[in-house]
């Protein structure tokens, strides 16, 4: 071997050794530590992003949006990557309108790999933060609920939680329909964090839409009227239901005080309740219409049947008197309703008897939920005849000793107004574009008797009636006032200072196309249904009748 050959051989050996080292290293990197390194690389370059499926829109009956979803951003931090926590906290707080101390506190745990800074931030703020390019601060897609009409129908529409799940109202009861399906996306980023590639693992899908029977304009007017009641009488609460008695479609369902559904956290827990379905009260005189309806259907009385009425009447150990003291009178059934005579109603109830009375009030739907598609509907309390005491039939015919919800009263009066058919109140017009089949209803009283009752109820708003000061030019009105004493929880007896004032009315009297139920809980100053609630009916009807294009008589 000459020198050149030896050198070539040496070079060859070096190359072989080097290649051997490379081979060993390759085996080590790929075979032994490959899995770990691959996982680390994936962690640095790839991330799984959840893409929220936005909730469906809630519309009113005219197509106006009551609740819509808007894209938003969740701002988060990886504290150990944040270089200057104080400066970062200051900048974030300024853009997001947060307290910088709180932001700084959330960045304080330097070992933490994740912390929320702000959830459901609006996109303009998110864009500002993106431009700040703060190390350790990131954003995730999110969705938030917007209520374009503000507090309008807040309790009815309801609220959603931080994860976009329905919490109260229709947002909760229709959550399955409204809730979208979240998607998932795999994003690959380069060393600078720029997106290189995205793969959709599961596509997100928006929820379905919901169209309500509510009319935003009517709802707004009804809420305005309730607000006036709230300002004037400062009650514990008030509610109003506006209904088309022909179909039992709920056109407005308002509560006072209202609720801002976009900020449920700051709301008084009681204001989350929809009084129309969740408030139970003794209906008082508004219930007399059903006492009379039962007696009419049984053929025991006619509108002109006359009763001789003493100033008071004793039933077992209880003496029932009129709201305003009077002497002996003779009143027809129509007058008993118009003047809201307690003694007269008790006499009619006693003629009907406990068993039949119970049968008729249950026919009208009392003692069970109406079935309106709204969560948490109360069913009220109606005693069974075997629970009656000796004086029970001195209470029930005048609307004491039982409790109902405003919605039950509205549904039952709708049956009187529409010719005798009780229907489940309808609150949803369309689900996902498909019309909801209306309830055909059950006939509870004859058309003739319902017509008689309507005529008798006209007398309530006629001269001499308990709501004679209420009128709407061009229209005939009918209805019934109610002033019920509340039970004092301390003494267990009827309070002399706390009342529930109510009114249920409809118009036009002989062809009702509008029905309004007003219930005012514990008004101050005045407490009669005829002076507190009935004028509100007049105000609502004055707006609603022309609005609904109901021609005057």
């Amino acid at each position, binding site marked *: 071997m000459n020198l050149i050959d030896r050198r070539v051989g040496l070079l060859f050996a070096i190359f072989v050794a080097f290649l051997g080292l490379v081979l060993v290293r390759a085996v080590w990197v790929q075979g032994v530590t490959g899995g770990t390194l691959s996982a680390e690389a994936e962690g640095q370059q790839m991330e799984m992003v959840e893409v929220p499926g936005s909730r469906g829109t809630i519309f009113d009956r005219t197509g106006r949006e009551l609740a*819509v979803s808007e894209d938003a951003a969740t701002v988060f931090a990886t504290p150990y990557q944040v270089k200057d926590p104080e400066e970062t906290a200051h900048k974030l707080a300024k853009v997001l309108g947060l307290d910088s101390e709180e932001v700084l506190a959330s960045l304080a745990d330097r070992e933490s790999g994740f912390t929320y800074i702000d959830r459901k931030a609006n*996109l303009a703020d998110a864009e500002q933060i993106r431009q700040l390019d703060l190390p350790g601060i990131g954003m995730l897609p999110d969705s938030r609920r917007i209520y374009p009409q503000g507090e309008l129908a807040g309790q009815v529409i309801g609220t959603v939680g931080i994860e976009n799940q329905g919490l109260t109202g229709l947002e909760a009861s229709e959550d399955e329909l409204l809730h979208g399906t979240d998607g998932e996306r795999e994003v690959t980023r380069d060393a600078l964090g720029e997106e290189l590639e995205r793969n959709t693992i599961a596509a997100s899908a928006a929820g379905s839409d919901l169209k309500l029977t509510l009319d935003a304009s009517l709802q*707004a007017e009804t809420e305005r009227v309730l607000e006036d009641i709230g300002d004037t009488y400062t009650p514990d609460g008030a509610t109003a239901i506006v209904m*088309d008695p022909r179909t*039992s479609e709920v056109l407005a369902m308002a509560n006072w005080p209202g609720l801002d559904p976009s900020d449920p956290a700051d709301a008084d827990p009681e204001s989350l309740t929809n009084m129309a379905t969740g408030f139970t009260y003794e209906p008082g005189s508004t219930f007399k219409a059903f006492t009379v309806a039962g007696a009419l259907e049984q053929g025991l009385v006619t509108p002109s049947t006359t009763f001789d009425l003493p100033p008071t009447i004793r039933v077992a150990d209880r003496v029932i008197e009129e709201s305003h003291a009077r002497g002996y009178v003779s009143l027809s059934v129509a007058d008993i309703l118009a003047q809201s005579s307690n003694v007269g109603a008790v006499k009619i109830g006693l003629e009907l008897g406990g068993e039949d009375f119970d049968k008729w009030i249950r026919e009208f739907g009392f003692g069970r939920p109406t079935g309106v598609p709204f969560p948490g509907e109360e069913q009220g309390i109606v005693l069974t005849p075997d629970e009656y005491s000796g004086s029970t039939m001195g209470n029930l015919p005048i609307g004491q000793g039982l409790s109902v919800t405003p919605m039950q009263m509205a549904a039952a009066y709708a049956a009187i107004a529409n010719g005798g058919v009780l229907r489940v109140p309808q609150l949803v017009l369309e689900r996902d574009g498909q019309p909801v089949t209306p309830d055909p209803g059950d006939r509870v009283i004859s058309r003739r008797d319902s017509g008689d009752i309507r005529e008798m109820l006209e007398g309530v708003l006629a001269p001499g009636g308990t709501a004679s000061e209420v009128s709407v*030019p061009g229209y005939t009105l009918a209805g019934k006032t109610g002033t019920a004493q509340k039970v004092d929880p301390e003494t267990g007896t009827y309070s002399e200072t706390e009342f529930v004032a109510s009114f249920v009315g409809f118009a036009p009297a002989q062809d009702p196309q509008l029905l309004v139920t007003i219930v005012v809980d514990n008004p101050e100053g005045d407490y009669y249904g005829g002076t507190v609630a009935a004028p509100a009916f007049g105000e609502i009807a004055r707006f609603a009748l*022309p609005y609904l294009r109901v021609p005057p008589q």
Partner: protein
Amino acid sequence: MAATATARTSAAARRATAKRRAPAAPARGRASQGQITGFVPVAAAAGAVGGLADSRIFVWLSRGRLWIGLLGALLVGIVGLNVMALSFSASSSDAGQAADALRRQNSAFRAQIAGQLSNSEIQAVAAELGLIMPGPGSFTYVESTPGDAARAAERLRNGEIVVGTGSLGVAETVPVEGAVAPVVPVDPAATTTPAAETETAAPPTETTTPSAETAAPPVETAAPPVETAAPPATAGSGAGSVAAP
């Protein structure tokens, strides 16, 4: 030179070997016939590959410099393909981001529009325009008579009625003759389905329709100057005209 000569010798030797091998292959094939027939195709394929390796073109290619260029081009192509794939991914990602941004903008705009069409906003704008909420007494309902359509057609022909000015600020009285419509009481319970009940209860006649409310002078109506059928909030629903106070 010595290396070239050696190479030539080797090539000549390979060609000689190939020549020697060529007739041997069928002989092996024939010898194996009837004994291990399954090896015949494999052997034939191996022979063919061997033949290819010794072929002139292959030798020319492997000894020439063209393959270097070819391999280089292939490598560049592979790298290029990878770069292109990455570029497409990045473009796709950019497009996805742009689509996301547009979707977010749309959702923000939709929420914004919904807010601007809210009841309170519309009422505020209506109030700024001087529109008022008509009271129940402000409405006049009149009944159409059989000749009304013909008369209206005649007026349209004569240019007395101008349709669709589209102006919110102008509202004219309704030039339709007739008396106040008698309302036919309809008993909702007379029909069994709610839909039927709804239909029967529609106002029989109402002349405050947009088509009739334009420039023609009022004829025989006792209507007040303000003659409206809908509150401001429903101006877009076609419920009727809204008059200035």
